[in-house]
Every structure is written in structure tokens, then in C-alpha cells.
């Protein structure tokens, strides 16, 4: 399934850095986010967009992750050549990430 099925997301911008939140709709899906929406996967997903580092912050208090991506906004919001200089549309791209559903049935059999 797509990440969009279990999480919602919002993009913010500061200078040349984009942050993307990934928030579980249901708290019970937070472990799936932790396990599968990793820094490495996000970095690979945005390989064509992000030139710098990707850092992940974990917020168990609201069942969310926050990805901070440097070098992501074409040199900075105020000088970028990009159509979407703020990178506001990046959250939609992240929600396209493929997620393996939790194996609930197997867990209950065991």
C-alpha cells in the first residue's frame, strides 16, 4: 500500500531547507512509520530533488516523524528557479512511498 493510506503530511520551508512531516492517522500505525519511513528511503525517494542531508526527528507524542532536508529548494525559496519554489508539493510525493502492511493476522496466530 501507499504511505498515503496510513499517514498525512505537510511541507514547510526555511531558506534552502524543506521539512516534511509524516503523521500517522492512527497511533497504532506509528511503529510502521518508524520501521519503514527511514531516512535512507526518504533520501532515495527524493534523490532527484534533495542535494543535502536528510535528518529524521521522531515525535512519539503525536505519532509523527519530521524529515528535514537540506539543499532541497533550488538554492532557497527566495532565489529558486523552480515553479514551486517553496517545495509545498513535496509532501504529496512522499505519500506515494510504498509501505508493507503490518502482518496482524500472523501476529495473532502466533
Amino acid at each position, binding site marked *: 500500500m501507499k504511505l498515503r493510506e496510513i499517514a*498525512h503530511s505537510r511541507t514547510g520551508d526555511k531558506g534552502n531547507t524543506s*521539512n516534511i512531516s509524516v503523521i500517522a492517522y492512527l497511533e497504532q500505525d506509528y511503529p510502521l512509520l518508524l520501521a519503514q519511513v527511514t531516512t535512507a528511503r526518504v533520501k532515495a525517494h527524493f534523490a532527484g530533488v534533495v542535494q543535502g542531508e536528510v535528518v529524521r526527528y521522531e515525535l512519539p507524542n503525536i505519532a509523527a516523524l519530521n524529515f528535514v532536508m537540506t539543499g532541497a529548494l533550488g538554492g532557497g525559496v527566495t532565489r529558486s528557479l523552480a515553479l514551486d519554489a517553496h517545495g509545498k508539493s513535496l509532501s504529496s510525493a512522499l505519500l506515494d512511498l510504498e509501505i508493507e502492511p503490518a502482518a496482524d493476522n500472523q501476529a495473532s496466530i502466533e
Partner: protein
Amino acid sequence: MRTIRIGSGAGYSGDRIEPALELAEKGDIQYLVFECLGERTVALAQQARMKNPDSGYDPLLEDRMLAVLPACVANGIKIVTNMGAANPTAAAQKTREIANSLGLSSLKIAAIVGDDVLEACNTSDLPIMEFDGTVKQLGNRLLSANVYLGAGPIAEALGKGADIVITGRASDPALFLAPMVHAFGWPMNDWNLLGQGTVAGHLLECAGQITGGYFSDPPYKDVPDLARLGFPIGEVAEDGSLVITKVADSGGAVTARTCKEQLLYEVHDPTRYIQPDVTADFSHVKVEEVGKDRVRISGGRGTSRPATLKVSVGYIDSYIGEGQISYAGPGALARGRLALEIVRERLKLTGLAASELRFELIGVDSLHGAELSSQASEPYEVRVRVAGRTENLREAVRIGNEVETLYTNGPAAGGGAFKSARDVVAVASVLLPRELATPSIQFVQG
């Protein structure tokens, strides 16, 4: 326990005005805050002020004040806003004129000045955070330097009886923190209270972004009545307890989900959200729905304020030239790609001096690049877009011109060509030792 209700009347300079009026009329609020000053806006306003010394404040100041002042006076609502932009004094004088013309000459109007630190930055030759270099090295490209002031001077102006406080550059959450500090007498070193107050300000500062704006994604996230989106109200108690809500029967929704999205908006390390007055910590914040369109936010904390203040430095960075043209129907994608190749070759043949160029198809790969869009199916129409960065306007103009020549020289049936060329006012940051910022309050007499 004492409680105040603060309405958020704008999330950016061009925001809708009716929701602010709705807050003033029906919001049962005591404070109405307008956050209208984007990262770069103050630099653009400074350019306007250089041309005309009486300008340099928010272009919608007059419309907003005319719309809300009568209801604010009738309901005893105080206004805090950064619509002063590059000229808070002129903005306060303009507001004075408007108030007088409405027969409201008893209103006390204050401007907060001192965020303009161009001189201090220039002489101390501070290093720029985003790239190698110093403020001094920007030379005659330098336009402005404005420090993010905190809640202190705004709260002080309210304490001196101001009904309207107009600032230039101030931290966005501080516009909201100031009424709390004023109303409750919060000490400016109670980091946990200031941290929780900052959470409130941060949640409210983008107005409609917490009441269902920038959120809807059908069918996963539906929001009712976005055309009548209501703006938020923060109900804050003396101990920092906070409920986010909105005017009953307005459009939109306040839910745990809208609040969580806004909590992380433009946040990096959630344990260190650096503000002029406090380093706020969002990592223990709890979000609970306690009623329809009522969400309780608790657990904001803080640690001591930083020794330096962030300064936004505005400068002329470069020039951008751009051209667009559309293709539709069968083969649109192939013709669009051919058009891009032609322009690419033409710019090379004619020796365009550009430090950076983008060739893309709107509708195909303009937002996220070729890699992420490679799986998409063929669209009915595409829009060619070529943009480049140059050192002067003359070169920038050539880019759009070259795209326009596709009309008669390019692939079949290109239509709707558009071109533009502009200078780029960009913003960089420096850190200023706190003691070099000396804000003060000016009351504009009736």
C-alpha cells in the same frame, strides 16, 4: 483562572479579509493578530520605501484596518500586527488617519521600531549563514537587514495602553506571545510558560492553515466549506493551557489532525524551536480533541533564550528570465520535449550567459523532476517552461524571447506563450548579538 481569546486574522500579506472581520464581530476575542510579513517581504518593502519614504508598509493595511476597526472598537479588541513591514511609523500614521476618518480618534496607536539593523550589521561585518561571505561583501546589492524582535516591546506597548501595536520584523509567534505576557504578567524567564505560549503562537500564525486550509486531500482528508474558511482562535489561560477553536458555523474544521500538521510546519528540530524570547520544545506536546472544533494543546516547554537574534538580510541576488508555451492533443508530449531541445540548443548557439537553467514540462516533470514523475501517463496537454539565472536583466530577457520564437520557429501548434524577466531579491540570515538590537515604542498622537 483568567483566560484570553486571541484571533488570528491573516496568515500572510495577501490573505482573505472577511474571516478577520468575522473574528472581530463574532469571535468573542480580546486580541486580533495579523501576521503579514514573509521572509522576503520586508526587503521588497524596503525597496518601495527607498522610492517613497512614506511607503514601505503592507499594501493591504488600509483595507484591513477599514474593515475591522469599527468592530474591534465596539468589542474592545486590541490589534497586534507586523504590517509595518519596512516602515512601522508610516503604517501607524496611516492607521491614525484611518481611525480618525472613522471617528475613532481616541484609539491609542503604537509603532515598534528598531528592527532595522542595517547599520549594525554593516559595521560589524557579520558572516552570512547560508553561504561564504559577510554582509559587507554584499556591497551595493545589500537592501535591508531586519532583526526578529521578540514579544517584549509589543507587550510593553500594550501595557502602556496601546489599542493597536504595529511592528516591522518580529518573530511571528511573538506577535501572539505578547498579548499573553501582557495579560498574565508572565515573567520573561519562565521558559516553560514562554515555550507553551510559543506553541500557541506557532499554531495560530498561519491563520487558516490550522482550521482546514492547506489540508484537504479528498477522499482521505475532507474539509467542509473551504470557501468560507474560518480563521482560528486561541483560548489561552494564565497557566498556559490552550484550546484552539474557531467561530461557530464558519467553514473549515479544527481537528487533532489539522493541529498536528501545523505543529510541525516549518519546524526543524522539534526540541529546539529557536525564538527571540525562548527556545521552545515541542517534543512533549499533546493534542486532544475536546469538542467539535475544539482541540486542547498541552505540554509545550522551553529552555533559555538564545544569546543572538536572527537577522533577515535582503539583497539583489541575480536576475531570472522565463518563458512558457503550451502544446495539446495527440503528440503534445513529444512536441513539448522537442521544443525544450530547440530552446536548449538556441541558448547555447546564441551564447546566453546563465549560471543555472531549467528545462521542464508543466504537467509532467516541473515540480519534482524527471525521476519521481517517470511513471506518469501521457497528459493531454503540456506546458513548456524554461527558466534561467543571469547576472543582468538584458540576459534574462533573452530566455523568454527565445521561448516565444517557438511560435513561428518551433514545433507545430504551440500556443499561449508567456515571458518574464525580473530581478531576484533574496534573503539570507546572520546572527546578531542580542544587545545590538535596541527596539523602542513610538505612540502616534491623535
